[in-house]
């Protein structure tokens, strides 16, 4: 009888412990996102569905999960958000898309974003972010889109980013970046378009060969002006 009783209590306590720890694993991601919500001002109430008492954040609007209830996407572009990002974002281990563009988010880019090893797209463009581009972003070996343009980022371009061979689209334009523009590794694919309107040292430019003049009349710059001229005279 005593053996049976002990077995019963062992089973009950193991079920209890199991129930205690199971939701905590998924709630860590919900907690991380809730930390973000707490740090943001949300006048349009886009984060209204973000209820931290739910077992996981997978039913929240603007959050996408995979089949294991782990967050893969956060889509909050153009949401009129302000405030700052949080280091807890680095806990979203399966995050692939972090879309926070076109808001009024200020403060720094957390270094911890370098822990998001599954990240494919990091879009923080058109915000009010300052401080440096963390070199930890060079650890994101699956990153394809890195768009940090139109912020107030300062400091240099981390050389470690040239080791991210998956990088296809880079836009760092319209910031306050200084120093040299790397041209090796993945940066061989990037032109001055990706770096314009900063305080970066100009890429060394070999003199162009003589270009034969085109027989057709309008050149690239004059066509819109010609249209404007036509309008102004009417």
């Amino acid at each position: 009888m005593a053996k049976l009783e002990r077995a019963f209590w062992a089973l009950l306590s193991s079920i209890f412990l199991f129930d205690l720890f199971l939701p905590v694993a998924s709630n860590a991601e919900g907690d991380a996102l809730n930390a973000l919500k707490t740090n943001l001002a949300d006048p349009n109430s886009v984060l209204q569905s973000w209820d931290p008492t739910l077992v996981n954040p997978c039913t929240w609007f603007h959050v996408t999960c995979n089949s294991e209830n782990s967050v893969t996407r956060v889509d909050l572009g153009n949401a009129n958000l302000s405030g700052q990002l949080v280091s807890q974002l680095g806990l979203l281990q399966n995050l692939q898309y972090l879309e926070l563009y076109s808001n009024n988010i200020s403060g720094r880019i957390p270094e911890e974003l370098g822990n998001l090893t599954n990240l494919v797209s990091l879009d923080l463009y058109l915000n009010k972010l300052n401080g440096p581009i963390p070199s930890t972003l060079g650890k994101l070996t699956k990153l394809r889109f890195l768009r940090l343009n139109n912020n107030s980022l300062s400091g240099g371009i981390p050389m470690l980013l040239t080791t991210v061979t998956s990088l296809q689209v880079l836009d760092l334009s319209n910031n306050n970046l200084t120093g040299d523009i790397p041209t090796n590794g993945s940066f061989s694919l990037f032109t001055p378009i990706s770096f314009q309107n900063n305080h970066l040292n100009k890429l060394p430019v070999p003199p162009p060969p003589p270009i034969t003049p085109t027989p057709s009349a309008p050149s690239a710059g004059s066509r819109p002006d010609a249209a404007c001229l036509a309008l102004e005279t009417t």
Partner: protein
Amino acid sequence: MAISLLENASLLMLIFHSLYCISVSNSICYAIELEADVLCLKTIKSSVRDPFGHLNSWKFDNTSEYSICPFFGIECWTSGENRVKSIHLGGMRLQGQFPQGIENCRSLTELDLSGNNFSGPIPPNIGGIIPFLTYLDLSVNNFSGEIPPSLANCMYLNFLILDNNKLQGQIPPQLAQLYRLKTLNVSNNLLSGQIPEFFSLSLSSDDCTGNLGLCGAPLEPCKKHGKKSNFPVKFDVWIISGFAVGYVLSTVLAFGLCLYTHF
């Protein structure tokens, strides 16, 4: 009195109207200047023939605000801004000449027109109109004429794919200045002449086969006919002069011997 009042009023109206016109036209000017990329795609669509309707999603209404970024084959830099990064129109059975209107896509880095029925020349000023290209694929078309030397101005080119066209003449030696070039394919054209020596690119013979008379690495070396290699000519001269000298010497020797034996 009433007339001068009317005059004043109409003068004021005129000034106001002019100011209004200028500000409106300025804002329209600004809008048009901002939307150069829209003009780019509009002129591309109107200059190519699209018998199978692949560009049907390229709609240009008269409203001033619309996005070209969802257009088929188009990739923009960011959402919300009409700045075109890539144009991929491969395999759409498009016809016509190289769309010159592309010059208005000022942020273009990738252009793929492969596998169509484009004909005519590659614009000689291509390096001037789309200088930021990193990827250019014009393969499997009917492009003719020469490879423009101005392509050397596209100094960010990583991939230059021109195979299976009717391009003729030489590969411009200026292309050796393309320091970022990783792939060059000119196979199956009508090219001839010396293949330039590239800085950091190792060409394979597959990249060069199927032409009229391309020579130099990685193909057979070019046959030398110029000033530098007059050795064959010299060799002939030496042989002839050697024979001549030998003939004269042996004649003199024989005559001398003849005289000696007689005296």
